């Protein structure tokens, strides 16, 4: 809490002091009007920081929420004489409701589909504002919108209203900051980076998307209320598609992931016409070109560029400390590792599992049982259905038929996030880390299902949330160290391949699951890396995890597996110890074909 306040207070104070430096007279009051306008825009653009910057969802409908907030407030306060505070709260609730609705519509959509649905929403809202004249006043809009008077201060004075707006901006910034630096913020980022990996780490895609859309809509509505009350008159043309593009530009140009950047972006785009006034009619063309240049060539926005520049300067002046060297696994803990022993206590039972894609029977009637303490390995030629089976087990695909039971609970066709929470985690054949997040952040997201603090607890800074966040970070560090990894602050996309595997495994085990599914962990590794990987598997096994892995590297399989299952053409053709299945005629035939004796 104090850190957040310390971070934003100087910035807010600087903003609050601006009116003192304005020239007097009409020019000064004109600039003050623009300032009030840009603060209301900034609040709405902060909504896009959450939706676009954090959760990676495109929305070209922010002006619609801005408009819904403004109209709901203005109609209640100006036409029906509802008190200011009550109108504002009602307007926020209404906007949030519409945000929830748009979130519901958009659940399964991404990229251009999502963009177009939001544009459609924007256009429909615009048409309703224009045509539903009984309520909205049609093209004439709503006038005589009141400003509040609280604590004996009359906010109809522009200076006071500006400071009230700054206070709202401060609250909005604080809430966005809280959200970002909590486990929910981690979930939003995970959604942006990789939806499938997010779901497999216990994050509910449904609620996370809804959270992003509603939070963004609420801030849009708050901005709209400030706008309506600030300008005391609204008409539909302010809330059209072009304004949505403007909000988008504010967020992107300023810096989509930065609260300060977004605020500055809003101010920049509001004041740009003043600065470019000497260009006369060319202004909008120049504005369009600037937006294109910044978006294409400065992905972090202007503020991101600025921060980078400062960082580079700092590196030149003070040398950065050398990053911690990786600790070899073997050297880290020297106690002898026992060869794992299997039990007869079933943990996962699969009966008659089928997965068909149209006519292709990828998995066609597979039964197997994995016992607690096993390192079970699933082998088979390419295209035999191993990965499909794993995807059905972890809930990424739904089964066509059959049942899966885990610890006696039926988990067939449950969602990936639910299966994760029951204690089954996984890694992917083509590593699915969150590329733009650091190694540590990746693993912290793995701990997400262990957290208990929800949205309200996060926003109101419940103590428990901070304790849990610290615990998650500590557990993540501990897990990474256990696997011999210490380059915590390197972005996942910049790590070498072998280390990405290690981080992905750490992410899968940090929440303490009972069963770990690994899809070809040794693929693409050299001999040393594979040897280190078997050490890692022993170590994980030591912790009491049961492991099911898919693998092609037979020497690796022979060194770790307690039990092997062989699949071919969607069916299980053999099972037993590694030595048993490798000498099974059916297995040899599957790998080498009918002429095996000549091979």
């Amino acid at each position, binding site marked *: 809490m104090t850190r957040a306040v310390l971070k934003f207070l100087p910035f807010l104070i600087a903003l609050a002091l601006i009116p003192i430096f304005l020239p007097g007279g009409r020019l000064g009051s004109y600039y003050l009007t623009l300032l009030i306008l840009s603060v209301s825009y900034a609040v709405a653009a902060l909504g896009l920081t959450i939706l676009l910057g954090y959760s990676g969802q*495109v929305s*070209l409908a922010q002006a619609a929420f801005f408009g819904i907030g403004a109209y709901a407030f203005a109609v209640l306060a100006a036409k029906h004489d509802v008190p200011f505070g009550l109108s504002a709260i009602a307007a926020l609730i209404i906007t949030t409701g519409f945000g929830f609705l748009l979130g519901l*519509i958009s659940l*399964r*959509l*991404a*990229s*251009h*589909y999502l*963009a*177009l*649905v939001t*544009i*459609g*929403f924007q*256009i*429909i809202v615009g*048409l309703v504002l*224009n*045509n539903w004249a009984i309520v909205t006043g049609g093209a004439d809009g709503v006038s005589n919108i009141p400003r509040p008077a609280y604590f004996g201060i009359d906010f109809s004075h522009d200076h006071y209203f500006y400071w009230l707006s700054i206070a709202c901006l401060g609250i909005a910034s604080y809430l966005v900051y809280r959200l970002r630096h909590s486990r929910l913020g981690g979930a939003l980022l995970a959604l942006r980076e990789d*939806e*499938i990996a997010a779901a497999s780490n216990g994050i509910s895609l449904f609620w996370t998307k809804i959270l992003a859309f509603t939070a963004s809509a609420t801030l849009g509505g708050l901005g709209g209320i400030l706008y309506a009350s600030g300008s005391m008159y609204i008409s539909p043309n302010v809330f059209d*598609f072009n304004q949505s*593009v403007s909000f*988008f*530009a504010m967020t*992107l140009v300023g810096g989509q992931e930065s609260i300060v950047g977004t605020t500055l972006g809003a101010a920049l785009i509001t004041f740009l016409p003043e600065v470019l006034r000497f260009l006369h*009619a*060319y202004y*909008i*063309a120049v*504005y*369009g*070109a600037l*937006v*294109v240049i910044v*978006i*294409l*060539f400065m*992905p972090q926005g202007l503020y991101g560029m600025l921060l980078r520049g400062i960082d580079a300067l700092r590196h030149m002046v003070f040398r950065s400390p050398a990053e911690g060297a990786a600790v070899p696994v073997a050297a880290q803990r020297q106690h002898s590792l026992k060869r794992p022993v299997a039990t007869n206590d079933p943990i996962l039972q699969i009966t008659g599992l089928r997965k068909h894609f149209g006519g292709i029977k990828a998995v066609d009637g597979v039964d197997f049982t994995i016992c607690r303490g096993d390192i079970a390995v699933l082998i088979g030629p390419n295209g035999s259905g191993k*990965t499909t089976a794993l*995807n059905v087990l972890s809930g*990424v*695909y739904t089964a066509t038929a059959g049942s899966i039971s885990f610890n006696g609970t039926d988990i067939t066709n449950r969602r990936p996030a639910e299966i994760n929470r029951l204690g089954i985690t996984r890694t*992917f054949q083509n590593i699915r880390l969150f590329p733009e997040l650091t190694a540590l952040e990746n693993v912290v997201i793995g701990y997400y299902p262990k957290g208990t603090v929800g949205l309200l607890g996060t926003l109101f800074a419940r103590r428990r949330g901070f304790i849990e966040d610290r615990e998650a970070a500590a557990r993540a560090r501990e897990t990474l160290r256990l696997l011999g990894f210490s380059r915590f602050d390197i972005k996942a996309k910049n790590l070498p391949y072998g280390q990405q595997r290690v981080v992905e495994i750490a992410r899968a085990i940090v929440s303490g699951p009972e069963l770990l599914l690994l899809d070809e962990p040794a693929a693409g590794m050299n001999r040393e890396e594979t040897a280190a990987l078997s050490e890692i598997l022993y170590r994980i096994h030591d912790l009491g995890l049961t492991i099911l892995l898919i693998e092609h590297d037979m020497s690796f399989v022979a060194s770790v597996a307690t039990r092997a299952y062989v699949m071919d053409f969607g069916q299980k053709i053999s099972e037993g110890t590694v030595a048993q299945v490798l000498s099974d005629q059916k297995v040899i035939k599957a790998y080498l074909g009918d002429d095996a004796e000549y091979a």
Partner: protein
Amino acid sequence: MFVEFIQLTIAGLAVGSIYALVALGFVLIYTSVNVVNFAQGDFAMIGAYFMVSLVLGAHWPWWVALPLAMVLTGAVGALFQLVLYQPVRNRPRNFLPVMIATVGASVFLEQVFLLIYGPVPFQLPGIFKAQSVKIDGVFVYPQYLVIIVVTSVMVTVLNWFLERTKLGKQLQATAQDADTARLMGIRVARMTALIFAISTGLGGLAGILIAPVYTVTAGMGSTIALKAFASAIVGGFGSIKGAIVGGLTIGLVETYGATYISGSYRDAFPFIVLILFLIFRPSGLFGEKVSQKV
């Protein structure tokens, strides 16, 4: 009543043909370079303005001016991709930045043409002088028939070009796998430029055809673009057949809706249909499946 219905159907098919032409551009660009070009509609505006210069300014006959205006629009389109797409084509996850940049480019193009041609709308004459003809008791605006006929011819020519010519095959190869196409000796950068030129040229044709019905203004492209985009999705994004059927569907829905339900909500109907499609059948009529591969 029935006569009115026939008249509306012709009008709807004509407007739908315009959407289909622009939607074809969306689909061609999307399938070949995986970029969604929100400035696609502005090329309709550009084509119409070129036609204004050639027909009203230089007094050329329309049958000379029309192909030239299309080619000029295509040239602007090729230049457009050189500036907007080529610099970032190899950057990972460039989909969103390029899409948003095309929104910015759309603002830019509209303003530039507003500055060149001024805010006063232009009225392009239709190919036939007659305002309306009466066929079997049904009043038909001849330009609507021109639109429908020209669009059908263009679609046939495009299909022949893509399926039957060597250049068309090269374009398809580039669209399906640019890297392999490059290994086969196809000049991918040229093919990309050509794709943009064809797509924007089709957009230009749409603008030229609709200009006699509406007027030529700098903003004429943006609503056409959004509805064409909706058409492409309703038809199934990525499918040429889908773009055409989707365009006609959206044109009819809009025309019937405006007359039978509410004229002031005319622009809402295409989007209501779009949202319903995205909820219940996101892959559209003929389209790609909208899901992620593990």
